[in-house]
């Protein structure tokens, strides 16, 4: 029960702080569930993140699996709802007010100000996940290869994920 409450509080707070999308909170999630609560290892964290990427649906499904790792199905539901509901309630209200403020100068300032913070948080998320996934030099090479492939080709990301899983199956024995 105390785990469920802790999950709810952690992910509800992150819901409001997820500027520019769910992925910007990954460093904070990793800090909370791995280093503060000690619910899972850093390796387990990136593995769950990867499994969520292999499923269809939004990126935020990783939250579902972090909850699942802590308290099974109940944990999955609590973490998912905690991460969804606060931001969605805000979206519901703001969706109707948007017409009133979309052309205001402060809206442009706020949005422009969020961009570099979002970028920095995304780079932090990528840095931590690459570090957590790098069990040895081969994993590091694989991460770099996938990143280069995604940046310089038009292939679908799922194609690279499949290739990485196959490379793991063959190369990590």
């Amino acid at each position: 029960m105390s785990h469920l409450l802790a999950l709810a509080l952690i992910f509800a707070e992150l819901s409001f702080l997820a500027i520019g999308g769910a992925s910007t909170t990954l460093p904070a999630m990793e800090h909370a569930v791995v280093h503060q609560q000690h619910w899972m290892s850093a390796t387990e964290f990136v593995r769950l993140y990867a499994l969520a990427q292999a499923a269809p649906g939004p990126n935020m499904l990783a939250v579902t699996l972090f909850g699942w790792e802590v308290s099974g199905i109940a944990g999955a539901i609590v973490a998912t709802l905690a991460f969804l509901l606060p931001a969605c309630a805000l979206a519901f209200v703001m969706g109707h007010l948007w017409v009133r403020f979309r052309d205001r100068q402060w809206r442009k300032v706020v949005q422009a100000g969020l961009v570099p913070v979002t970028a920095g948080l995304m780079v932090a998320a990528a840095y931590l996940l690459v570090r957590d996934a790098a069990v040895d030099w081969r994993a590091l090479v694989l991460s770099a290869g996938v990143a280069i492939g995604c940046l310089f080709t038009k292939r679908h990301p799922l194609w690279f994920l499949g290739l990485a899983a196959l490379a793991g199956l063959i190369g990590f024995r």
Partner: protein
Amino acid sequence: MESLPAQPLRLSSLALFGAFFQAGLMGFGGVLPMIRRVMVEDRKWLTPAEFNELISLCQFLPGANVANMAVIFGSRVCGPQGSVAALLGLLGAPVAIVLVIAELYARYGELAPVRHMVTGLSAGAAGLILATALKIAMPLRTSPLNLVVAALAFAALGIVRLPFLPSLCVLVPLSMVLAGWKLRA
């Protein structure tokens, strides 16, 4: 916006559920392109301009962008029950699928081939987010001030591991002051 239809669009909860169900289930590695295809190209519920307007609102708000989009679009065309229908459609099947994957992983994750595959998958998923992060960060290189703010955010959360809320309370206002100063100049 000039392109607003004369009659505001009204949709049933079921139609919303169906559209977001389809987008959620077909969206691998990012649902937004799928939502665009379903709502703009297939069903013509939104013009491309209206869709872009909706994206800019969803990115302005905190939280998962596609969940925000389901809530806002659902409420505009069908009221609160529309929000709930769109959100359930978007997330119901993917949540069920990801939990099945997790249960399989719990059962077979200790087997050597599965473990190696997931190790490779993890490195791949980390590479994917690295590519996404670089795509977002690259346009900042023309603005030294933005680069400094991004570097501070990276260092605070990625290296020093400062607490998230206090870090944002410093970084976001700082960045907004700089943005306001630049927009005025």
